[in-house]
């Protein structure tokens, strides 16, 4: 039996009020540790320079999306591209700072929009995103500077 299981069983064997109190102490300790060493809340610093822009390209073909990103624009910005295209071999060696895979459909609890918002919020926090653009909105503006046009 693992130490983790033993600890959980020991906690479970305590009388209710005492178990609640011990769990409270554990939570408090975790919070304190978290405040002292918040290594798991640190944003990820993207290489390059310029504002960080998140482009939500779910529903679009990744090859087309990558082909349509203006290179000059990509140099002046750090692009976080959210895609539901699972061809991960396309995720590397692009002009985007990072490409993140986000599943297309609703989550197991059926609240797709809430999930979508949560995922984008998380990415925004993680990479300190300054702007979010929907690629499909960008696309309608046409031309070879789609992302540039939408985000400017």
């Amino acid at each position, binding site marked *: 039996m693992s130490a*983790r299981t033993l600890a959980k069983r020991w906690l479970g064997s305590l009388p209710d009020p005492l178990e609640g109190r011990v769990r409270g102490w554990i939570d408090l300790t975790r919070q304190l540790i978290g405040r002292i060493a918040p290594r*798991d809340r*640190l944003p990820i610093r993207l290489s390059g320079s310029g504002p960080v822009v998140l482009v939500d390209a779910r529903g679009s073909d990744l090859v087309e999306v990558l082909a349509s990103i203006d290179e000059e624009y990509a140099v002046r910005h750090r692009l976080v591209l959210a895609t539901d295209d699972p061809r991960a071999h396309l995720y590397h060696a692009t002009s985007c700072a990072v490409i993140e895979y986000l*599943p297309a459909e609703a989550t197991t609890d059926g609240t797709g929009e809430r999930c979508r918002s949560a995922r984008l919020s998380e990415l925004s926090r993680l990479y300190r995103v300054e702007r979010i653009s929907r690629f499909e909105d960008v696309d309608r503006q046409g031309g070879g500077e789609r992302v540039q046009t939408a985000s400017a």
Partner: protein
Amino acid sequence: MSARPTVMLCTSNGTGLGHLARVMAVAEHLRERADVVIFTLSAALSVPVDQGFRVEYLRSREHSGLTGAAWNSLLSQRLEHLLSIYRPSSLVFDGTHPYLGLCRVLDRHDEVTAIWQRRGMWQEGKGSEALARAHHFDIVVEPGDYAADADHGPTTKQREGVRRVAPIRFGPQPMSRENARDELGLDPEQLVGLVQLGAGQINEVDSMVSSVCDAILSSGRAGVVLATSVISKPIEPRDERVHVLRTFPVTAYMDAFDFGFFAAGYNSFHEALSLGLPSVFVPNRQTKLDDQAARSRYAAEHGLALEWDGESPTMLRDCVARLVDERVRTELRTRMSTLASADGARGVAELVLDALGPSRV
């Protein structure tokens, strides 16, 4: 909110599809009674997506350009986020190295039953640091290995409390030989060998592939189908007589073939042996941890398969000469028929569901 419990199956990246295939096999059995989310670091995420699974992905450390500390922080943050969205009752990790970022999250979430699914056959003297992280999990489960008797690696010294199940094989039952040959466009009468020497991610397999294909064709007795990995760049065979099959898994077509040449990784080894395909195993000696040499040697010593060292042309020609001999293939098939079924995924799924408790399933 769904009333069904959610199970999150996590895989390391690995260099092939081994980890991903094993969790998909388990997921197939869990699907009826639980919602399943596969969280993978593998570049082959399109495979579970195509199989209809809900998949979450994070680029592996090697592809991230981040330091180890920064990547583990990224992993922790992603996992925390996914746990908050999916609220899984159980998290199953298939990999040989539980990452620090994963362990930190598990330590913060004792409401989640943490299960480490790790195969054996580690090379001797390696992996002790990873094994020491077993205490972050509630349960450790080891999928069986037909060559387990030849396993002298570190996992054999830490078996206390470890649950063991049968070997795991992912993929559908093979279609009939006639249908498979028809789909692949193969001559129904010709002897055909399948060549599948790995993803080409660990060592350079191209020259080896060519050697094997040449040796089979040179025998004048058999044709060749070359199975290429869905996660490596497509291979252009030099010889136009070589058919190329780029699909995963290939198990559906297994009965189309009379024999095979395989890397001695966990998946190929158990696919070939459990489905009774007379085979030559070629150990990849460049893996970090997997003791493929011990696995293929065991199979050869016990008459379950043949072994090629990947170098000797004489040995290769001998393997081909033996495999095109019907008597040799019959002997191998007879030996393989004594092996246990590779249905360990069912055992893992039952273990996961048992851990949820009756009120949560």
